[in-house]
């Protein structure tokens, strides 16, 4: 795709809508799509949803200015975590479902592109059973996470997102 046609920001959200709080990713993506359109900001973003992160998602990162991953987190700090991430890999991981860091690491290995600055919004979930609805806690966490998403998408620039991530870390970990 010509670079002029590539939206500068890609948002990759994963999760299974039929498995309880695993629906947090697709739910936030759906809300974000509607909100971006209502605000007239949709042209600046490409929103991609999937069950799981996979190798080909690395190609969705090429040519972007910023990337944001959204996922539900098990044992994640409530209501959510927001942090900058770098290319990397866990010592053992599933290739049926890559971590965001591993997706970043795959891109330069399979193309000439370098991954864009990337951030992870990980929203705390509790129940992941098949057929379960979103838990009450997850609904509340999603609302708080969406408020952050709105702020991020009003000003999609690296400095602002990095500052938000630092502020989040300082607030929750006392700057350590």
């Amino acid at each position, binding site marked *: 795709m010509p670079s002029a046609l590539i939206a500068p920001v890609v948002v990759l959200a*994963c*999760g*299974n*809508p*039929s*498995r309880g*709080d*695993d629906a947090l990713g697709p739910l936030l993506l759906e809300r974000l799509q509607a909100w971006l359109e209502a605000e007239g900001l949709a042209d600046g973003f490409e929103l991609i*949803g*999937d*069950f*799981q*992160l*996979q*190798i*080909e998602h*690395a*190609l969705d990162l090429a040519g972007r200015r910023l990337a944001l991953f959204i*996922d*539900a*987190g*098990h*044992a*994640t700090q409530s209501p959510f975590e927001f942090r900058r991430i770098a290319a990397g*890999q*866990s*010592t*053992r*991981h*599933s*290739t*049926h*479902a*890559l*971590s965001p860091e*591993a997706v970043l*690491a*795959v891109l330069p*290995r*399979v*193309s000439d592109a370098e991954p864009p600055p990337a951030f992870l919004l*990980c929203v705390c*979930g509790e129940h*992941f*059973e*098949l*057929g379960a609805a979103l838990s009450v806690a997850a609904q509340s966490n999603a609302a708080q996470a969406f408020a952050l998403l709105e702020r991020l998408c009003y000003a999609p620039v690296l400095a602002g997102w990095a500052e938000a991530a630092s502020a989040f870390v300082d607030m929750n970990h006392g700057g350590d």
Partner: protein
Amino acid sequence: MSFELETAPANATNLRRVAIDPVSRVEGHGKVTLLLDENDEVQQVRLHIVEFRGFEKFIQGRPYWEVPVMVQRLCGICPVSHHLAAAKALDWVVGAQCLTPSAEKLRRLMHYGQMLQSHALHFFHLSSPDLLFGFESEVGRRNIVGVAAAYPEVARQGVLLRKFGQEVIRLTAGKRIHGTGAIPGGVNRALSLEERAGLLAEVDQIIAWSRDAVQLAKRLHRAEPGLYDVFGSFRSNLMSIVGANGALDFYDGKLRARDADGKIIVDGFDVQNYHALIREEVKPWSYMKFPFLTSLGPEAGWYKVGPLARVQNCDFIATPLAEAERREFIEHGQGGLVHAPLAYHWARMIEMLHAAETIKDLLHDDDLSGSDLTTSGPRSREGVGVIEAPRGTLIHHYRVDDDDLVTMCNLIVSTTHNNQPMNEAVRRVAKRYLNGRQLTEGLLNHIEVAIRAFDPCLSCATHALGKMPLQLELQDAAGQVVGRLSSRV
């Protein structure tokens, strides 16, 4: 009934338990438990898989037309197979046993795109780390990122093959995931000439890469026949659907089974009567059932499904490049069937080549751009849809009431068919490689290599961060944990 090493001898004492929980690089959750005696001799090996029986209840009470979309949430890797198996079953409900040519070809194209992308993912990104680096190689390198670093062209081709398959799915199903292309009675969209031209522009490269992949799998196999022909090998029956005239067919056909010597024992069996052909045994230690051919009973009637079964069960492959490779594969068996689990990889790549060739043939067919997309006939309350999914035979069975709501759903997925074969492979590997030795990560990875050859799809499509831990526990005879390894995605 019980097989060798399925249950420890009653007189065995001072056993210690080793659990690999869950198996890494396998969808969802699986667990292997090994019971070792004080001399590290293997006394019992069991592969435990959590089956997604809950989904069958989840579907009950839904309008039947929602089902082909809903069932895609079963699996994050092969949603299209569930989508199409459900649509095929519900074709019977709307009286559309014979689809229009356009609808059937569009569904086929979607399915062959699914086979191509899933096989590419499996070989290049699930199994190649083990095959290219060795089963006991450095664990930190034994993953896709390690492959990308050491073999960048192999990794790149794997990504682009998968991407092409997904593009075929996107164009036929409407979306990359949660597609709605197949509906009871047909499909809801055709391909434009521009869409066909776009795919045709890439397909020759895809075929060329698929040929290279067969050569790579074959080269690996032939470089170490002492490993590839023997590792975890066991004899069993085979089962798959076979198309018209005995051709390899992933989308439609009749059920055929062969015995371990290759003799056909069931042929031309109507899939609508699958329940007369197959029964499922329940074992108290496993959540997953053990299917077997009713006529042979549970002891002799279990069978393999998937690429290794399909490539040897058919009489021929209708595309020339894959057929030439099939013949070479059959010759490798020297008159008998190839039973080695690692040969699944070779067979899988032959199937990927066939999928690529078939996609090209279909793209030249103007029926793909036709407008006659649905049909219907006298309604029925029941239907069975069978398809060859990437991992093997997939059966969907539904009953629908007068209000069009699903009252019964029964799914037999390929991983269930392969339950006994996977257990058997794991036991062979444990006996050969683990007996009497101090356990290391590399040795335990041998168990996982055997499982990955079958590519089980477990209760899957949930992937919250931190929700897929890998834990290895070593316990002594008293049940005390004496060692633990853990990592999280």
